[in-house]
């Protein structure tokens, strides 16, 4: 049985832990709001961009001259997986869920005899899949110095991927990130970006546009930017998901610490009572002996 002093120390230590998790939860809540605002602000751009790209792709997509970014290289032998996770831990299952999805997908591809290459964005995902898939890593993007993800960061990643695509290093690229549903639920998602998976949703009105310069040129100009746009959207979703996951994880941790303090306090009180009772028995039996 632990002594009173030990129990007191435990209680103090759990109380300190609770203070830390509480603070982390509040910081995450503030960051979550900012991340959500950023995602909100980016939405009009993404929506319009995809609408225009979708319309263009639908009209040009069928032809043989369609750019490779849209129609693919004609093979699906080499896959590039871009695994986007957080730079920090302590956010519940956020990082491991993305890593798990990516690992499953990678193992499926390997089992099917495909070549797999992996780019990791964010340290935690890299650590999580290093043991199983470390041989497949081709690059890593470190965003730990970036306070707020900007479009420039997404462009950097996209430029790297496009250079590799132009060099014929892979045929199909898929990004892995976590979609923000709400604070308690984030869905790990795989999304194919090359060849562009565009929902060929024809414009209801079927507006006929004049194109300046030509349709093909605009499409060829837009597709690489579509990659950057999708990555940017994914980074923002990921940012919001990370903070949401951390917030609920820290909320749980705070609650658990509270429960633990209650239990320890009861145990402490019981032992103190036992000590008092013991002392009384000694005094009384001592008095009776006289």
């Amino acid at each position, binding site marked *: 049985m632990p002594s009173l002093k030990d129990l007191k120390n435990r209680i103090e230590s759990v109380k300190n832990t609770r203070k830390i998790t509480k603070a982390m939860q509040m910081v995450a809540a503030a960051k979550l709001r900012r991340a959500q605002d*950023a995602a909100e*602000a*980016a939405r*009009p*751009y*993404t929506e*319009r*961009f995809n609408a*225009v790209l979708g319309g*263009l792709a639908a009209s040009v997509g069928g032809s043989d001259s369609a750019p490779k970014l849209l129609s693919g290289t004609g093979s699906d032998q080499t896959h590039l997986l871009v695994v986007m996770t957080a730079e920090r831990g302590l956010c519940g299952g956020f990082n491991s869920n993305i890593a798990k999805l990516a690992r499953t997908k990678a193992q499926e591809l390997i089992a099917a005899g495909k070549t797999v290459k992996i780019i990791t964005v964010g340290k935690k995902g890299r650590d999580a899949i290093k043991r199983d898939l470390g041989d497949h890593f081709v690059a890593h993007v470190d965003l730990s110095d970036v306070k707020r993800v*900007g*479009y420039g960061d*997404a462009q950097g990643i996209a430029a790297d991927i496009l250079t590799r695509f*132009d060099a014929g290093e892979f045929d199909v690229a898929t990004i892995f990130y976590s979609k923000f549903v709400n604070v308690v639920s984030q869905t790990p998602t795989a999304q194919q970006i090359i060849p562009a998976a565009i929902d060929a949703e024809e414009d209801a009105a079927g*507006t*006929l*546009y*004049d*194109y*300046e*310069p030509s349709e093909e*040129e*605009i499409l060829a*100009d*837009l597709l690489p*930017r579509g990659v950057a*746009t999708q990555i*940017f959207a994914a980074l923002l979703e990921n940012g919001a998901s990370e903070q949401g996951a951390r917030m609920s994880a820290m909320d749980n941790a705070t609650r658990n610490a509270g429960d633990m303090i209650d239990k320890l306090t009861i145990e402490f009180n019981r032992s103190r009572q036992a000590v008092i009772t013991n002392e009384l028995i000694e005094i009384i039996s001592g008095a009776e002996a006289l």
Partner: protein
Amino acid sequence: MANTMQFDLVSPERSLASLQVESVQIPGADGDMTAMPGHAPTLTSLRPGVVKVQSSEGEKSFVVTRGFAEISADAISVIAEQAHAGSEVTKADLEDVLAAARQAAQDATPEYRDAAEKFVADIVHLMENMD
């Protein structure tokens, strides 16, 4: 016909403007064009330049680099990769863009070099016209 149209200017990081306008001048890839209500539906890519908006509240201008514009009879959306309100953009901002563009032009493979060099030239032109 209505004499105003809906104008939206969006960049990846935020939406800069959304208002009713009388006319918009945009720097199209093949030359400047002015869109007024009732314009034929057009999709054009942009070169770095100034978007001038004429509305009932007066004239506003925005500096954009790369992007495209979607024009229809009653609305125009400018979807720019980078955009700043004309009043807040400084030469220093463009210097960064220019430096990056010059670097990109140097690194570009031959098939992209022409486009990259044109981009540099457009930015230089834009900066000269700012004073």
